[in-house]
């Protein structure tokens, strides 16, 4: 019996992905596009070359970090919608440190820039945590507002102090702060895979260890699952709320660092959010707020996002329809409860047959 359950847990998401793709195919057919060529393009876009695999990884990396950030707060019973803002603040800090301290050797400068990003993101998240702990202000509201502030503050700082004339971005960060390495770039044929990937993987391990191996993690989870009982057991709920938001913000800040220190080596004056923070919510939920789940969810999400470009290129499917396809896959995976509902009658029938024979 247990075996069947274990088997189901793999089968269900795979069938869900399939159903999502089927639905996407219907949408594409309705739009007059050939779904077979399109999906072919999607798959080949993800796997066909070292470069493409690399770019897929580059898409996955920040999603792992923002997914972890959202999940970490979730585990403490907090809904951090502010990952986006914490990411921007982290990115801005990384950019500034990356530009400023060019005289440092790389093995000091690069980690320093990354740490600056984590701290800045952490403080930004911790601020919402503090407001919740001390004033009882709902973190959903504060983090949404802090997102706006982060976006425009970041833009302002870059515009006022670090704008490279004639461009809409900051000066480039010093090479000594860059996360890019020749060996990784060459390994993936010029794709933008960089040390950000390593940072993300370390973060996954840290996420797991903090939550499930440390005293701090025990407290955070206890608060998240039942803050009354936690308080009764002598755990300081308020300080854990602040800590959780701080660590969540740090993870978001790291995601920011991978952008300005890796993907772009500068910070653009952004007209809008990156969207990564919000995708992180989906990744965290899809991944069940667990370390491995988040890696898998981010991989699914990131691969579809990158591979979607191939559908546009080869079959001319417009971005809007590609987004519908991606969304329907995510939807079916997330809503595998629906799927279970569909197969339930079949299972019941089978059981009856089994009983009869």
């Amino acid at each position, binding site marked *: 019996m247990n075996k069947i359950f274990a088997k189901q847990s793999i089968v269900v998401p795979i069938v869900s992905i399939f159903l999502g793709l089927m639905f996407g195919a219907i949408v594409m057919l309705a739009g007059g596009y050939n779904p077979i060529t399109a999906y072919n393009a999607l798959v080949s876009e993800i796997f066909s070359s070292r470069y493409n695999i690399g770019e897929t990884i580059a898409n996955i990396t920040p999603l792992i970090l923002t997914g972890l950030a959202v999940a970490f707060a979730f585990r403490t019973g907090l809904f951090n919608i502010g990952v986006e803002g914490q990411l921007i603040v982290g990115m801005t800090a990384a950019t500034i440190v990356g530009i400023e301290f060019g005289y440092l050797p790389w093995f000091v400068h690069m980690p320093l820039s990354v740490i600056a990003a984590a701290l800045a993101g952490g403080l930004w998240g911790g601020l919402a945590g503090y407001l919740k702990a001390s004033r009882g202000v709902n973190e959903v509201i504060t983090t949404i507002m802090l997102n706006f502030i982060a976006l425009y503050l970041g833009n302002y700082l870059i515009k006022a102090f670090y704008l490279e004339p004639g461009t809409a971005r900051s000066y480039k960060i010093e090479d000594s702060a860059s996360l890019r390495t020749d060996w990784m770039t060459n390994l993936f044929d010029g794709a933008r895979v960089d040390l950000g990937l390593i940072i993300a993987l370390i973060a996954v391990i840290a996420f797991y260890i903090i939550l499930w191996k440390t005293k701090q993690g025990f407290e955070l989870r206890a608060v998240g699952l039942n803050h009354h009982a936690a308080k009764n057991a002598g755990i300081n709920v308020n300080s854990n709320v602040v800590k959780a938001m701080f660590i969540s913000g740090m993870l978001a800040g790291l995601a920011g660092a991978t952008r300005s220190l890796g993907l*772009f080596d*500068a910070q*653009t004056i952004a007209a809008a959010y990156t*969207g990564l923070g919000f995708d992180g919510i989906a990744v965290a939920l899809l991944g069940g707020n667990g370390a491995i789940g988040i890696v898998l969810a981010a991989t699914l999400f990131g691969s579809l*996002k*990158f591979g979607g470009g191939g559908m546009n*290129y080869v079959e001319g499917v417009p971005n809007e329809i590609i987004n519908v396809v991606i969304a329907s896959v995510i939807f079916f995976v997330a809503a595998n409860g629906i799927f279970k509902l569909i197969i339930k009658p079949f299972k019941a029938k089978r059981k009856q047959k089994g009983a009869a024979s």
Partner: protein
Amino acid sequence: MKKFLLTLSALMLVFSVVLAGCGQAEDEEDMNDTNGSGDMEEDATEENKGASDISFGMVTDVGGVDDKSFNQSAWEGLNKLEADLGTAEPKYLQSDSDADYIPHLNKMIKDKDLTWGIGFNMADAIIETAERNPDAKLAIIDNEIKDIPNIVSVTFSENEGAYLVGVVAGLTTNTNKIGFVGGVDIPVIKNFELGFLEGVKAVNPEAEVEKNYTGAFDKADLGKNAAATMFDSGVDIIFHAAGGTGNGVFTEAKERKANGQDVWVIGVDKDQSIEFGNEVTLTSMIKKVDEAVYQVSADLVEGKYEGGSHIVLGLKENGVGLPEENPNITDEILAQVEEYKEKIVSGEITVPSAYE
């Protein structure tokens, strides 16, 4: 510069000849230089033989090729090329965010002979791609990239064209309040703004110009909000340089017009009266992105792609300007516009630029 002009004029010739064949020459007549066209025609036909093997691609910024403005114009240029010269079917890729530029460009250069980056923001990505792939040929609109042998840069003197629509706005306004809605505060858009302000000031020093940078090129809702605020404060003409965001400006103006408010919009990049109708479109500051794309691409077909060059298209080159038909502008005003145009072309007036 001289070299460039030479190239350009040669190009225009080819262009006009082909267009003449399609019966659209009228539009493009201004582009014609006075050079003889006989021997050029031969060249063109020769090149046409291999044209079907030559393919073009473009990568847009976050706006799509249906933005009714900038990207659409570029895309039309490539499509016209296919129609006229029989080049292979062009392709485009739309970016969801700035992170997409490089992978999209990389995808394009793999099987396209020339890849366009449409927009100021793509410079870094174009440079990185060009340097990594020295054999690929690239081109960018709206940003000048120096000293890279496989990039052609095309910029426009938006300030000059904007100056002329500024003149129109300054002379047309009843409330002496004029609005400017910009997309993102980047040098290209700043260039629109500077020229526009200058043009208004030249003919109507009394008029105030309200400015609003919405921060996006693809958010019609922001454009609508910005327009609503301006119209409420008494503005009666808005000039937008905001791509898809500007669509919202038109929507708002149409609603106002339907309610009897006397408001106008000055369009951008294309003759937007075609899309949004003459009842709200006062005129448009046309930026002939389509032609720039067409010309440089056709150049490649000709075997004359000149990497590292920078092409500037201003009033003189007819790269910017007002549409042919301006039913909403009085002849007197049009005459004044013509006057100012001549002064700018002759160098009598120098319009301040955001690029300097």
